[in-house]
């Protein structure tokens, strides 16, 4: 198995606060990996380094053999943890925007996903509910034929119906050629879609492994393991 993402001894310090401390991870191609931890555990910092938004203080990061930058941005499709579209846009404008920006954007896939999400391309962004915005953002991100998808809290704050649609879209989009990194603290809702899980605690990798092996070894659900590690 080839590693699509390699992280070695990664640390990130904001002034005096350590956000990540000596994180090392190797992620295989074709896996769905859950990055689990409460708020402030370093999940978003890790993702911002992988997407080239932040620079590491120490350590090395490689995505498909390259350091985060222009090349990796063309193969990494990233869903930030907040809405990234302009309010004046209609859904169609957002699709055109992505089409202009990314060579690997598949317009037909986007229309198919929009229909699945029950979104209309004439809708205005500022009229969308939080759940609808999340569904639109995910539609755009999944419509790229990327090697790596990085989804930061894809189901945070959405209602159960939207959550199920988002999970279905993620599962349907999965293929062996691409890798998915998903951060969440809503472990119970998402644990069944992970091949591997990584527990981040106070900026360090506390535990990582195959989700099924961990269930078998610990005789508990990943959700219960999460509660054990991070306390109630």
């Amino acid at each position: 198995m080839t590693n699509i993402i390699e992280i070695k001894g990664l640390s990130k310090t904001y002034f005096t606060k350590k956000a990540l401390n000596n994180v090392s991870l190797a992620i295989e191609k074709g896996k769905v990996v859950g990055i689990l931890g409460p708020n402030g555990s370093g999940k978003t910092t890790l993702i911002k380094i992988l997407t080239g938004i932040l620079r590491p203080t120490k350590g090395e990061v490689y995505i498909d053999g390259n350091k985060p930058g222009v090349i990796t941005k063309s193969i990494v499709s990233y869903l930030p943890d907040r809405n990234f579209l302009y309010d004046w846009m209609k859904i169609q404008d957002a699709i055109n925007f992505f089409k202009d920006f990314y060579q690997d954007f598949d317009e037909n896939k986007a229309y198919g996903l929009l229909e699945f999400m029950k979104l209309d391309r004439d809708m205005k962004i500022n009229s969308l509910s939080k759940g609808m915005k999340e569904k639109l953002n995910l539609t755009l991100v999944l419509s790229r034929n990327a090697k790596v998808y990085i989804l930061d809290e894809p189901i945070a704050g959405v209602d159960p119906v939207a959550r199920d649609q988002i999970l279905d879209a993620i599962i349907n989009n999965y293929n062996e050629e691409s890798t998915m990194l998903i951060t969440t603290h809503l472990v119970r809702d998402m644990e069944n879609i992970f091949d591997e899980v990584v527990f981040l605690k106070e900026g360090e990798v506390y535990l990582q492994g195959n989700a099924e092996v961990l269930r078998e070894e610990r005789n508990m659900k990943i959700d219960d393991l999460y509660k054990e590690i991070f306390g109630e």
Partner: protein
Amino acid sequence: MFNENLPIYIQIMNLIKRRIVKGEIRRGDKLPSVRDLSTELKVNPNTIQRSYHELERENLVFTQRGMGTYVTEDENIIKELKQSMASSLVNSFIQDMRSLGFDLEEIVSIIDEKMREGK
């Protein structure tokens, strides 16, 4: 739907076994595709694949390349499955009853009584 503290692939195997024993899926029937079952259960496709693989190792299903996964045609294998599911249920029942202090005679008489009531 997956609440036991067991690996998901085993829970999915058990789910399919139950469907076979209950006759919801009959011998020779095609199982749902990995992708369809993965969407239905909201589970990683690799996990479904593993369940199918393990069921194949137990000779309950077989894969036809490019066609899909099918339930065995062999009636005896399904009968055996039914037997083994029954005996594991009964065994765990007996174990539970014993741990409550019932002896074999008492257990039988309780079952006997219940079965009569049920009629």
